């Protein structure tokens, strides 16, 4: 054979490979197109429900004007609680511009809501000198049977005591929580199992930074991957009597890694609630609780991937009776594939988490809030992911500018003034939300368009709640600088479900941190009562389980935050079951 002929022979697979690479580009992102149905629909019923909340973005010190769209791109939060005790979950949305009101949507029980924030005294929280709201989390910190509200801000914390199910009183100062902390997240947990809810607050910008009066513009992160110059996360121990004590240093949880989200559960099964952090510009962190005395930062395989963690969602992904972790990250095609993490909890066998995110679930765009929920009640969790960072001009992307400074020496980009002017550009804007159908070993399928989710808003917080007490997991999305959305879930009616209202006695009254395991047909499912998870969000506190065609649950095991375990046999399905914690 002549050399030219040989070259021609090699050229065939060479060209074929290029063709296949090209083809793979268009094939990216599986969509659900097989014959079986997702078995649920999500319908945008925001307007019908009377929810008219529109988030307003913060305006900052003019010295930060070149990157203001970037710095002020957070703050659309939503949390769920039955604040008035009428049995219907209510919604609280945060706003982020001075003078703009937060909204408390009281659930009327007929499918509609009314904003009562002003009369309840929880609207006017965005004021010069106090800061602007970034999110909120509900918990009965004084065990009086009424859900109290903690609002975290770029500014001072605000603890609002629920007086009578109608009105709230600011008790921040008396509680010892009057701290300026540029926070994007907080969770309630009872880390020492004393029956009182403690508070963990995450910090983003350093505490000395006042974004409306910056002393220096050197406020940004000192690495795109291993930044450690963020604000210090704080743990407040509930002393009782409405007082809290800062125990951060004593317990060793004062990470300064630009934390954007936290979640708590007993990941290692030792009976003590641990803390999992999603950090921007850095690896995730898992703090294991050492018998309520202190926390130990463990690697657990998390240190090997440094990304931009935005949210922590917990779910029993493959019904193994364990809580796995989903952490959102950034993917921008051509520029950056950090990839979302779907980490299976293998602490018992391997002392680590195992990231099993496939290409579909790994790349949801610039992903923010996410939650697991069994949207079709088939017995496995789906995953809702909100996406999109900044939607400016469609034809003008900041990614090119970002790519210039991302590889630079940190001394350059630590100074906000060094960043290229953002102007009216987009940065991963107009990205659609994703709804991933859990197909077990067959992987995840993006069924968003099939089930009716087509919005391209800049999603931030996602919360899940059964707003009509009908065995369906409705999805609420708070969008940055844009209207909030309520997607009503319509699961396949042939599937069964069960849900629980937990009333704690020895544990914190909200039962936050309780873990519920249902056993049926040889299957296991575990959920934790949510003290705050996702990004700037908190779900319905009543654990919901889809059962598929199973008409019977053999056993329910409740692991109470106090350390006690309760077993319920043969609870009725297709309804809420109220479980009261045994007093002894």
């Amino acid at each position, binding site marked *: 054979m002549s*050399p030219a002929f*040989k*070259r021609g*022979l*090699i*050229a065939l697979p*060479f060209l074929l*490979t*290029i063709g296949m*690479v*090209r083809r*793979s*580009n*268009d094939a*990216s*992102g599986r969509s659900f197109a097989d014959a079986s149905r997702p078995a649920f629909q999500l319908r945008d019923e925001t307007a019908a429900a009377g929810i008219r909340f529109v988030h307003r973005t913060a305006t900052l010190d003019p010295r930060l004007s070149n990157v203001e769209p970037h710095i002020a791109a957070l703050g659309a939060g939503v949390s769920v609680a039955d604040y008035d005790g009428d049995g219907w979950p209510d919604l609280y949305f945060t706003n982020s511009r001075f003078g703009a009101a937060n909204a408390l949507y009281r659930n009327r029980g007929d499918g509609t809501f009314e904003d009562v924030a002003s009369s309840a005294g929880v609207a006017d929280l965005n004021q010069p000198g106090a800061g602007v709201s970034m999110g909120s989390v509900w918990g009965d910190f004084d065990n009086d049977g009424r859900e109290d509200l903690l609002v975290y801000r770029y500014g001072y914390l605000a603890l609002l005591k629920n007086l009578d199910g109608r009105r709230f009183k600011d008790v921040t100062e008396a509680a010892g929580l009057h701290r300026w902390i540029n926070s994007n997240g907080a969770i309630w947990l009872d880390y020492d199992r004393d029956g009182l809810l403690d508070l963990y607050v995450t910090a983003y910008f350093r505490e000395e930074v006042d974004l409306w009066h910056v002393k220096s513009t050197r406020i940004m992160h*000192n*690495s*795109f*991957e*291993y930044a450690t110059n963020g604000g210090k996360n704080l743990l407040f121990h509930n002393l009782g009597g409405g007082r809290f004590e800062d125990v951060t240093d004593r317990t060793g949880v004062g990470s300064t890694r630009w934390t954007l989200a936290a979640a708590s559960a007993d990941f290692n099964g030792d009976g003590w609630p641990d803390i999992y952090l999603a950090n921007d510009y850095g690896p995730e962190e898992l703090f294991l609780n050492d018998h309520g005395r202190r926390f130990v930062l463990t690697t657990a395989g998390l240190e*090997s*991937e*440094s990304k931009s963690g935005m949210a922590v969602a917990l779910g029993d992904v493959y019904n193994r009776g364990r809580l796995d972790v989903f952490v959102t990250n950034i*993917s*921008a*095609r*051509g*520029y*950056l*594939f*950090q*990839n979302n993490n779907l980490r299976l909890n293998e602490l018992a066998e391997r002392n680590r988490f195992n*990231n099993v*995110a*496939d*290409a*579909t*679930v*790994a*790349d949801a765009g610039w992903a923010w809030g996410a939650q697991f929920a069994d949207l079709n009640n088939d017995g496995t969790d789906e995953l809702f992911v909100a996406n999109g960072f900044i939607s400016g001009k469609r*034809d*003008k*992307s900041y*990614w*090119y*500018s970002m*790519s*210039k*400074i*991302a*590889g*630079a*020496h*940190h001394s*350059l*980009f630590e100074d906000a003034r*060094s960043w*290229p*002017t953002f102007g009216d550009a987009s940065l991963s804007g107009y990205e659609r939300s994703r709804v991933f159908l859990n197909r077990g070993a067959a992987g995840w399928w993006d069924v968003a368009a099939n089930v009716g989710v087509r919005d391209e808003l800049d999603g931030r917080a996602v919360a899940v709640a059964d707003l009509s007490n009908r065995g369906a997991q409705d999805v609420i999305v708070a969008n940055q600088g844009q209207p909030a959305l309520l997607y009503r879930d319509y699961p396949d009616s042939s599937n069964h479900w069960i849900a629980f209202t937990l009333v704690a006695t020895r544990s914190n009254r909200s039962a936050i941190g309780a873990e519920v395991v249902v056993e049926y047909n040889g299957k296991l499912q575990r959920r934790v009562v949510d003290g705050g998870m996702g990004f700037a969000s908190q779900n319905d506190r009543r654990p919901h389980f889809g059962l598929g065609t199973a008409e019977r649950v053999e056993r329910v095991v409740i692991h109470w935050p106090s350390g006690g375990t309760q077993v319920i046999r043969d609870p009725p399905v297709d309804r809420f079951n109220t479980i009261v914690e045994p007093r002894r």
Partner: protein
Amino acid sequence: MKDVRETSPSPTPFSESAGSAKVKATPRLAGSGVWSALARVDPRYLIAFLITLVLIAAQLRYHMVGGYDRLAIALLACLATEALLSLFVRGKVTNLLSAYISGLSLTLLTKPQGAVLWPFVAGGFLAIASKYVLQYRNNHLWNPTNFAITVLLLAAPNRISVLSHQWGNDLVTNLVIWCFGLVIAARVRVLHITLAYVASFLVFNTLRSLVLGQAVLPELAPLTGPMYQLFVFFMITDPRTVVKDRRWQIGVAVIIAFVETAIRFASDQAWTLPTAFNAAPALVALFLVGPVAKFVDLRRRN
């Protein structure tokens, strides 16, 4: 990355230094201990050793490989392709060092969507096969790694990105790569190419930022990123794909910097370009200019 294969006879002045084991220390260098010791080492081994060191350091310090399966597959793809194609074309398996270097380069620079591994298979094959397919007068025209990554980026931006890891944005990593790069570039006598490109980049992009009224420092910042350091020290100076004459080498480096600046200017103006142009303008500039320059050089010399 340097392609230092030992295949077709090289007409370049670096064929002895980079293309074969018959390396002689220059008189100027023979006197210095470390340098003369380095001068006795076949540059291919030196390059392989140093890029291995860079990868190990980056992995240990920043966990940047993203999974050892990626490394294994990229290496396997490059080594197997080189072995098979050299056996097919020349009847014997050639030295696999350059394939090894290409495999490491791909691992360092390619960041795929999710946990997919096929880009390392496809990239490895394309890098090595390009040397056998895209030839002119027995010389390949593209730097293999540059070709593979740019084609992957142009063809599948939905699936591929380039070096999203920044290696900590710290001084130590920068210094390490600069030191390694300077040693290699000087050893292989291509330092003038590196310096010509860097100087041109600084001048052209300063002018660009002034013309556009943008702050200068962010426009120069890419040079301190690890992707650029790998680019200026290893890729643009590939002895097998640079032109022959020293002055022309400098000229081509300047042209590459100019084309890159033009791409950046277009990006500044939000012109519609393939994502690869915005995400990796340096790689695209080399991809466009390098083969043309090499082609003209080969024609001119014959």
